[in-house]
């Protein structure tokens, strides 16, 4: 491609990015009705979608598009801002704009009637802008900026209902945990900048870029004239991963995501399922060359562990959104695992397929919640409208929602014919292939992933069966017969649109072989091992056979018999129900610890630091008082003493001055007389 088309492509991408910002600014700055902005936002995001499609067509499987401008200069370093679109970012741009546009349309009905709705549209605009910026930018600094901005817009949207205590606590928690991860990201940036003196992604991470030219020599990480102890390479990788782990809700920074479900469901589906939480995976993809084998191993282990942990928690939750939230954490773990085992393409592939089916799961759940809430309002019931124990039999009332959600669930399980089958099996197969080359213990990883995928089959079928099969349990509890409606038409259109993306033809014409998927081919990192490998047939067969058995088991438990074994007293159940106690541990150790520390630091500040100053002040006053006393009693005392003595003498002498002649004569006579007497006697002696 020549420069002119490069420039136009960049302008297209830039305009696509700026459209949602226009919504944000326009809605907030132009006053009007409190529900303004809906059509403006939808118009803008649709335009973004159109442009993204154009950009995608222009860029996919074409040379990378990269344009930049001077941004600012510090010292001798020139920082540039630019746009870098390769297959990965073009794909992400398309994915985000498509899902965002669908969610916008869905929100039209879902959020209807909410007070201050304009804020919702504005915040969504800010989010889409930051997310687009995140995927197209060419500089780590800008990437970091957009990274924090998506966190900020997620903060705003989680706390959209700011009068609810739980919502404002959740958004604070989300922001602070993400901030913690961001410190890792920032540390990574500092290391990269120190070593390479640039933050330009294409210079650093492209093929033959700076990072690949840096070498390890005698325990030093060397690039041209710069060197650092080689531990910093590992630290850099871990630091970036720490940032990604916070955004993608990986252990140990995963606890914010379930709480983030306090936001509107449409927000959860867009931000906390499909796009923003996948940004961590995207980041790893952008900077993949920085990770050395130790860090990749850590990523794989954390990913596998998170996937397993979150799946066990999802087994026992009763809030429909929380189940899906833990499912998201678990699936993100799969993507991380894929990144860690070197299955870069599969990770991104799973990111894409997951975005669609998880978004759909949330939106369908949203439809259910919408109707349950409606019921709750109408009959003034005191119930939790997100509790799956109150639902049941909804497939009769909401058939379309049921079918679409079922499709999404099948994709999540990875049943052949769905998109999820392709991407998930790709990850499992590559994990097994990877473990061939690993030492004994690490072989656990692919097996844990296998078990996780069976757990997935269980928790999602439990959800589907409890919500849509059997009969409405709310009737039993309230002793009344309720009936629900299908979701509003606009919402169901969106559900149907998303459901089509859960099917294989969008991703590969071969429903069984992930290697033929155009995404994997486009990201051109097909594994070298041919299909001769036994894993390629064994794993899909084993996964699916067992998954079907598990689905049947949950069918017998929740539908056929309508009763499941009561495990709620077992320790393992409680462990999972309390989310492995992470929240409690964090609250008691970190949160309370820091608060205690801050209070003691303040007490120290008041008592010791300020106390010392005040002591100094008091000591000075005391010394001043002392010197005043000295001055008065001693120095002044001497002066006054001299005065008093003079006065006494004067008083004494004054008695002589009586003014009577007789006295004077007598005195004179006495003096003369005594003079002679003294003289006489002294002579005699």
């Amino acid at each position, binding site marked *: 491609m020549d420069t002119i088309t490069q420039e136009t492509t960049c302008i297209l991408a830039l305009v696509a990015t700026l459209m949602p910002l226009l919504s944000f600014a326009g809605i907030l700055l132009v006053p009007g009705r409190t529900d303004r902005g809906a059509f403006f936002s939808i118009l803008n995001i649709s335009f973004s979608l159109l442009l993204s499609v154009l950009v995608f067509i222009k860029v996919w499987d074409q040379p990378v598009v990269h344009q930049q401008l001077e941004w600012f200069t510090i010292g*001798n370093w020139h920082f540039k801002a630019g746009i870098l679109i390769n297959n990965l970012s073009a794909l992400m741009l398309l994915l985000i704009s498509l899902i965002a546009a669908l969610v916008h349309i869905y929100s039209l009905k879902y959020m209807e009637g909410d007070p201050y709705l304009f804020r919702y549209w504005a915040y969504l605009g800010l989010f889409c802008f930051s997310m687009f910026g995140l995927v197209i930018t060419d500089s780590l600094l800008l990437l970091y900026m957009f990274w*924090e901005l998506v966190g900020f817009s997620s903060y705003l949207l989680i706390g959209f209902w700011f009068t609810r205590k739980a919502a404002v606590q959740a958004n604070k928690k989300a922001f602070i945990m993400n901030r913690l991860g961001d410190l890792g990201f920032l540390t990574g940036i500092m290391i990269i900048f120190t070593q390479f003196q640039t933050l330009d992604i294409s210079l650093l991470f492209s093929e033959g870029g700076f990072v690949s030219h840096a070498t390890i020599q005698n325990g030093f990480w060397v690039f041209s004239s710069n060197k650092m102890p080689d531990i910093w390479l590992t630290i850099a990788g871990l630091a970036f991963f720490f940032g990604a782990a916070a955004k993608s809700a990986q252990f140990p920074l995963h606890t914010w995501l379930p709480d983030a479900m306090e936001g509107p469901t449409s927000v959860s589906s867009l931000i906390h399922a499909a796009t923003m939480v996948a940004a961590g995976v995207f980041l790893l993809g952008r900077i993949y060359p920085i990770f050395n084998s130790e860090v990749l191993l850590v990523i794989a282990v954390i990913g596998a562990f998170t996937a397993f942990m979150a799946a066990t928690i999802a087994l026992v939750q009763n809030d429909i959104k929380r189940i899906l939230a833990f499912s998201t954490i678990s699936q993100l773990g799969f993507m991380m695992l894929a990144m860690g085992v070197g299955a870069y393409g599969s990770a991104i592939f799973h990111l894409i397929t997951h975005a669609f089916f998880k978004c759909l799961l949330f939106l369908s759940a949203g439809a259910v919640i919408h109707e349950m809430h409606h019921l709750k309002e109408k009959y003034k019931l005191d119930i939790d409208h997100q509790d799956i124990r109150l639902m049941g039999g909804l497939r009769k009332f909401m058939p379309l929602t049921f079918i679409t959600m079922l499709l999404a669930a099948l994709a999540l399980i990875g049943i052949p014919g769905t998109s999820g089958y392709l991407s998930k099996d790709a990850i499992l197969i590559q994990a097994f292939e990877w473990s061939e080359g690993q030492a004994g213990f690490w072989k656990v990883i692919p097996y844990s992933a296998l078990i996780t995928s069976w757990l997935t089959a269980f928790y999602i079928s439990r959800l589907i069966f409890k919500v849509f099969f059997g009969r409405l349990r709310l009737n039993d509890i309230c002793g009344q017969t309720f009936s629900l409606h299908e979701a509003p038409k606009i919402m169901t259109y969106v559900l149907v649109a998303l459901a089509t993306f859960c099917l294989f033809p969008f991703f590969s014409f071969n429903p069984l072989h992930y290697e033929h998927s155009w995404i994997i081919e486009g990201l051109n990192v097909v594994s070298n091992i041919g299909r001769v490998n036994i894993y390629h047939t064994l794993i899909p067969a084993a996964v699916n056979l067992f998954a079907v058995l598990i689905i049947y088991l949950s069918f017998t438990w929740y539908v056929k018999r309508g009763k499941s074994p009561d495990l709620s007293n077992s320790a393992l159940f409680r462990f999972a129900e309390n989310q492995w106690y992470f929240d409690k541990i964090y609250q008691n150790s970190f949160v309370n610890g*820091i608060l205690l520390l801050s209070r003691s630091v303040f007490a120290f500040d008041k008592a010791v630091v300020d106390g010392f100053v005040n002591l100094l002040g008091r000591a000075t006053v005391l010394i001043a008082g002392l010197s005043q006393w000295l001055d008065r009693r001693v120095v002044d005392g001497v002066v006054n003493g001299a005065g008093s003595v003079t006065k006494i003498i004067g008083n004494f002498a004054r008695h002589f001055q009586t003014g009577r002649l007789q006295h004077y004569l007598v005195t004179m006579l006495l003096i003369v007389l005594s003079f002679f007497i003294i003289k006489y006697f002294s002579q005699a002696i």
Partner: protein
Amino acid sequence: MSLLSLLIFIPLVAGLIILLLPSIWQQHYKYLALGAIVVQLLLSAYVYLNFDGSVYSGIDTQSKYQLVERLPWIRLDLGSFGALEIDYFLGIDGLSMPFLVLSSLVMLVALISSWEIKDNLKGFFALFLLLDTAVMGVFCALDFFLFYVFYELMLLPLYFLIGMWGGIRREYAAIKFFLYTLFGSVFMLLVIIGLYFSVTDPQTGNHTFNMLHMMNPDNYVQGSIFSALANQELFGIPARLLAFIVLFIAFAIKVPVVPLHTWLPDAHVEAPTPVSIILAGILLKIGGYGILRICFSIFPDAAIESAWWLGLIGVVSIIYGALNALAQKDLKRLIAYSSVSHMGFVMLGIASVTSEGISGAMMQMISHGFLSSMLFFLVGVIYTRVHDRQIPNFRGLALIMPKYTTFVMIAFFASLGLPGFSAFIAEAFSLIGAFNSESINGLLPRWMAVCGSLGMLLGAAYLLWTLQRMFFGKTRLWGGEDWRQKLTDLNGREIFALTSLSVMALLLGIIPSLAFDKMNASVLELIRLVNLR
């Protein structure tokens, strides 16, 4: 008369006019003051637009300063001691010019918030304008004696402004502030005298107070106390190091750094809103500016030697200030402690002696100037309405004061370093500079930058917690219905002040070159000077 003199003396003249006007016109004093400050702001905007950052790198070369004005001021023949040479010597380079713009804008905002002052208006506005003169003078002065005169001149109006228009414990706060700062500057005077006797003007051969001459080691008299070659010692410490420490303490009190910070929370809490704005917005920056202009430029050898300690002080201030802020219940005190934390980044950046670090520190000072002014203005808004600012006494303010809450959120997120606002660029580059230092000059270890970044986390914690406690949730006020009546949303005057500050923070965050381009050459020149030793 040159532009800089106009900038300095216009407020003074306006202040004198206010003193002469009869008191029956006291309702109009503020408009006179406003006029003076608007003229000042326009002048400084003009100076900014005409300042060529790449040419006027300043630091130790007079010809590289812009708008130089040098008039003999005091000339005394002292016989065998030579002639006393004090100049009225002004000029600006990339280190001082940004502060002129900052100061005039902050002064404007402070004046706007002075609308709430009701008693003794003549005294208030006269002192206010005198303070303005002193502040401008400090940033322009290039003669150390002149600098000291302006520096001390700031104390007098501030003492009275806090002591007469302050809160309940105003006398305590005022005297504490006064003594603290005086403690620093008294010893500074000794160093100034020492420098005077060590440095001669190469043209006239007389001793001089000219700062630029002090920066050149060739101008030191052989064997004089501060001559780098003589290696004199005082009390067993190298004299130059001691002088550096003394000057550093004087400026560090202003910054302030831990453990010399305790005047700040008291002064802020007791001071009336406009004075808090000036304190946080401008006066703290004089500390950082003094460290760069005087400590680092005149004693670069000692600066390099102490860099590790300065970095440590920076990191400690960042974390200590943030932890203290987390424990506060008084909103104003919380913001005062957050200032300590944010100014820690300045120390860390300066100590790194890298272009990223020092530019980051400069940016942090400018950005904090805008943001802390905004924060104190916002505190002032609720304080003037209900005379209370205890965090637990408010809840759910977002419902009754939506515009106010919007600005609070802008100010809070901007100061916790949300990208897009100036503080992010500033803090990120202070940290990057500190991290880079080990590779470039080996002054600061890398862990300092990593620890310093924790301040950004704690910053998010205390600000978001405050947002949650005061602004979100269902409205519940300690003062009940009475407060609800009084807590009206922002008026036009307040919106104007807050908008101008947020726009500045946003502009600098998105187009940081607005500031960096002006100071880049000076920062590089300073680093060259320091590395020359």
